[in-house]
């Protein structure tokens, strides 16, 4: 025993080797071991940085918006990496500024869906019984409409602008989040610390927000990542069919839609915007899958 103690100068150091790593630390380590997930994370960070620094990379008014007819349909070159579009605007500049819209609307709509759907799901999962039945049957009705169509209906009714798009996509994702949060809450609900909290007289609201939801964090984060990807896809899809972000504003989907007419002779015009959507979604999918595996190693 003496020898062992001697090896370590202090007691603290001795016990350090037995100290369990925190769960977060363990999860993070598992995540880092997953190469694809780390690649996804890096790509996504890169996209976010591009979106933040967009005004530095290219001027919005002069490069992304201003029509410059003599410059139209120039193939990719050192001056214009991705070429210029049918109105002579630099495609790179438009893509970089388009990233801002996609990311902002993507995250805002998922936040909205998480807020409403999460609240409904938490209530349904926590109380169970009749309340659960009523809420979930309502959500099922919304699930009967594919989310693109639900978003379409809302946009059709209230008009196409950024705020309406965000609300439309957010509402169309709400039922999905309510299901995710509900099932997460139901697994946590029966655990002893929730009962303990109830025993010491905590209110239901307090238990839901401070004990239950905190411990459902993992699966929710995974779903948020994956749904941001589908939200971004939905934005560009709506814009592609002309019911999303409207023309002069650069958005990946409407860039594809306007470039379509010229793609037979200028194929590059549809390459960059499509690639931008594809890479963004791929990175989020990689990230989401990686997080899921890291949070629940059994699933692998």
């Amino acid at each position, binding site marked *: 025993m003496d020898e062992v103690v001697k090896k370590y100068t202090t007691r603290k150091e001795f016990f350090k080797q037995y100290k369990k790593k925190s769960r977060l630390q363990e999860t993070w380590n598992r995540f880092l071991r997953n190469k*694809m997930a780390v690649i996804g994370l890096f790509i996504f960070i890169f996209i976010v940085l591009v979106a933040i620094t967009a005004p530095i990379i290219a001027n919005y008014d002069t490069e992304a918006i201003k029509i410059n007819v003599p410059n139209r349909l120039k193939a990719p070159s050192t001056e214009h990496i991705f070429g210029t579009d049918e109105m002579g605007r630099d495609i790179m500049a438009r893509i970089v500024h388009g990233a801002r819209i996609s990311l902002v609307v993507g995250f805002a709509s998922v936040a909205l869906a998480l807020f409403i759907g999460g609240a409904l799901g938490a209530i349904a999962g926590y109380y169970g019984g009749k309340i659960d039945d009523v809420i979930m049957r309502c959500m099922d009705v919304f699930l009967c*409409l*594919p989310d693109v169509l639900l978003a*379409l209906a809302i946009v*059709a*009714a209230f008009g196409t602008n950024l705020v309406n798009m965000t609300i439309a996509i957010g509402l169309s994702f709400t039922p999905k989040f309510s299901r995710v949060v509900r099932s997460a809450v139901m697994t946590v609900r029966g655990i002893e610390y929730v009962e303990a909290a109830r025993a010491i007289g905590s209110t239901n609201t307090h238990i839901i927000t401070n004990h239950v939801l905190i411990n459902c964090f993992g699966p929710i984060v995974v779903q948020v990542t994956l749904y941001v990807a589908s939200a971004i896809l939905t934005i560009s899809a709506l814009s592609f069919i002309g019911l999303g972000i409207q023309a002069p504003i650069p958005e990946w989907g409407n860039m*594809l839609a306007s470039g379509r007419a010229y*793609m037979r002779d200028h194929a590059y015009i549809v390459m960059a915007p*499509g690639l931008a959507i594809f890479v963004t979604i791929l990175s989020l*999918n990689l990230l989401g899958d990686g997080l899921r595996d890291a949070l629940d190693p059994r699933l692998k």
Partner: protein
Amino acid sequence: MFKFIVRRLLAMIPVILAVTFVVFTIMYFTPGDPTNTILGNEWTEDASAKLKTELGLDQSFLVQFFNYTKNLIQGDFGMSYITRAPVSEQLLARFPNTLKVVAGAMLFCVGLGVPIGVFSGVKPYSLFSNFTMVVGLLGVSLPIFWLGLLLILLFSVQLGWLPSSGIDGFASLILPSVALGANYMANIMRTTRSSMLEVIRQDYIRTAKAKGVNARNVVLNHALQNAMMPTVTVIGMNIGALLGGVVLTETVFSIPGTGRLLVEAINKRDTPTVLGCLVIMAVCVAVSNLVVDIVYAYMDPRIKAQYGGGKG
């Protein structure tokens, strides 16, 4: 089994009614006066009021909804504001095209996704399996509309093998089906692979192998049936997404289907047509969910046993 089907059929009715209600409510709150759309330059206050009475637009929300559903049950989707023809006529003309594309996509994604998933699940670390995993990963992230454009560029512009638009004949269906189905094929493939992986490790598979059942039989008769359950769920969940995606596919390939009709109607503010399209699509989703449930029940002996003593 019959009891099960009847029960599910009855459960579908309130769902469809509720969806109709939701869609109707959304469209009811559309700002603007529909009589403006219909009358255009001939708009006068009197004409507008007269038309409103004629169309029943002056009645309260609930009465309007009640009338709409009443007509709907008889197959009457109302009159289009633009063409003044019954919406049902247009739906009947357009819907078969949508059905063709969706069926093509289903065929493509199930017909290719399941076998590839099974193969790569049986031999999980082979080159083929790794390759399919990469393809699957890329496939789930591909936007339908971009893939559609790329397919047109390659197969109709460059190679000139397949038509890029319209719908006549089998050849014109290939590209839209692939574009629409690619995402879901990747999804189905990944699901089949992972459930196959799980099943193939289980004891009863080892037992079967130990008894001397040949490898082919083990996979097809023992493993596949259990491994298919999650795949069937994924297929079922994807039918809705396919119907959503059809709007994009029809736009890319200029196919005159329900999706295209919906977009056109939204642009022209033709509310009855929009409603009709959405209701039809929702009914499709509900029906296909029902079909998936029935298939599921056939495959899962536990559900079968619940209704009618094992054989049902």
